[in-house]
């Protein structure tokens, strides 16, 4: 069962005099997100991540293609869909004079909550966001971390089936980011919520997402699990060897070795497939009389994949 089924989504922004300057934000994006998944959209600035998320959240109308979210067409059935989704963003902003509890209550009312139900929901959200002690603080007096916790709490006001998070940990201190990520993971674990998030942080994507799509210049360049992406990009595994003698000139010419570099007293060989090349290398080194004192095998991290794809 799909939460999101997007096909050939196209979006172009017009600017300048008479809208003559055109910027293609999305150039035929297709995406399928299963229900209950945490799906990450990665990409450099201006890649089209927020545009894609905004189309999914009915804030932006696509120029072409079809998008079906939770069984509803995002254009024709936007009203029905809005009851079942919500959105939080890292650079969220709310009315400066309203207090934390008032902001939550305001958005609760927009979703039809009232009376005791509304009061209960506001209390729950204050608890979820650890915002209780700040309930009477006006928005413009909150710290960045509290603002983001409020944004996430607000996005849960209608108990959405599908939650869009646009850079949810942007600008947060590391300890708060960790708590925010753990909270996002718990939303799926405890409520079965489908979550689509955009992020710049590879660690966040790797830690949270079942699947990742890498978008650049309005096109999805790669998608899959973080492991899939690493394999697709073929940037290779790294075998780090501590050798005696430390310099083995022929190593970089060995079959399957893409490049070698010496660092920290080790030779770091990037190979096409570590599983296949490691036994071959060890045999060759042994037959040449080179002693192998230590071996480490490392997969490339998602950050390297990002750098490679963004290039």
């Amino acid at each position, binding site marked *: 069962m799909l939460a999101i089924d997007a096909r050939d989504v196209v979006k172009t*922004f*017009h600017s300048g005099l008479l809208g003559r300057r055109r910027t293609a934000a999305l150039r035929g994006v297709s995406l399928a997100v299963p229900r209950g998944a945490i799906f990450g959209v990665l990409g450099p600035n201006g890649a089209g991540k*927020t*545009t894609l998320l*905004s189309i999914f*959240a*009915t*804030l*932006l*109308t696509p120029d072409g293609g079809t998008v079906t979210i939770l069984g509803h067409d995002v254009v024709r059935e936007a*009203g*029905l869909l*809005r*009851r079942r*989704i*919500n*959105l939080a*963003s890292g*650079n*969220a*902003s*709310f*009315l*400066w*004079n*309203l207090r934390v509890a*008032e902001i939550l209550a*305001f*958005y609760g*009312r*927009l*979703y*039809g*909550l*009232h009376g005791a139900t509304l009061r209960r929901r506001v209390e729950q959200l204050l608890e979820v966001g650890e915002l209780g002690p700040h309930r009477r603080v*006006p928005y413009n007096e909150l710290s960045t971390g509290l603002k983001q916790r409020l944004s996430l709490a*607000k996005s849960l006001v*209608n108990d959405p089936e599908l939650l869009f998070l646009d850079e949810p940990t942007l600008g947060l201190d590391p300890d708060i980011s960790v708590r925010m990520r753990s909270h996002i993971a718990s939303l799926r674990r405890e409520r079965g919520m489908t979550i689509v998030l955009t992020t710049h942080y590879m660690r966040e994507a790797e830690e949270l997402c079942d699947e990742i799509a890498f978008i650049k210049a309005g096109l999805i360049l790669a998608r899959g699990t973080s492991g899939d992406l690493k394999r697709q990009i073929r940037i290779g595994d790294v075998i780090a060897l501590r050798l005696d003698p430390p310099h083995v000139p022929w190593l970089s010419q060995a079959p399957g070795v893409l490049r070698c570099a010496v660092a920290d007293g080790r030779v770091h060989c990037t190979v096409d497939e570590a599983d296949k090349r490691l036994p071959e290398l060890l045999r060759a080194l042994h037959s040449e009389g080179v002693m192998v004192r230590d071996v480490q095998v490392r997969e490339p991290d998602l950050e390297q994949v990002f750098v490679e794809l963004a290039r």
Partner: protein
Amino acid sequence: MAVWAFALRNLQMASRNVFLLFELLFWPVVNVMSIGLLTRFLGLSGPEISFVLTGTIAFNTLQVCQLDVAYALLYDAWSKSMKHQFVAPIGVRHLTVGAWIVGMVRGVFVFLLQALLARWAFGFDPLGAGPLPLAAFLAGCFLTAWVIGVLVCALVMLVGLRAETAAWASINLVLLLAGIYYPISVLPGPVAGVAAAIPLTYFLDAYRAHYGFVPEFRAPLAVGFLLAAGYILVSHWALVAAVRRARRSGLLLKLSE
């Protein structure tokens, strides 16, 4: 519930805004006093004073209500929170009607304040026409305010915050055209035609008739309400279309950044 959400939000925002005092107290009092004193300096007669002060009071009442309707979107544009309300299952009617309710409450307050002041300082009683004419007159002010406020909102959704000055500037067209300080018969022909298209012109005409002025129009209340109803439909449609366009152009997102 969504209408109540916007009404309560506007009320909360207004109650913590120092400019509220200026909108509710300072400007209305200054306007009634300065115009009233001007009529005294010019040596105007009782009916003439009532003519001018009726216009002044109507203008201030309308302005306060119209600003509240415009604030329905301006608050979100200023706070960059536009996307959060448009991702919710609401229609623009919830937004504008909620803000309009608060505008009417504030408008009634401003009207009563000015009425008391006009009676105390200049011997003119704006409440003297009786409850039904008064209710029709205030309804005319508030309906005109709704139309102008919603058109300002539509403009904000079309061109962004560049249109925010329209919230304060647009009302001055009413000042010029709707017979606030003078009967529209003194306006040049084509301009008088434009004035005749403004609902407030008719409500002022009808209300002034209770103070001895011969109405310039036949059945002014009926025409005023019909015109207002037509403009309400047009302005609502304009706002719906502007929001739809903002979703296409991306302005809705830009107003949230």
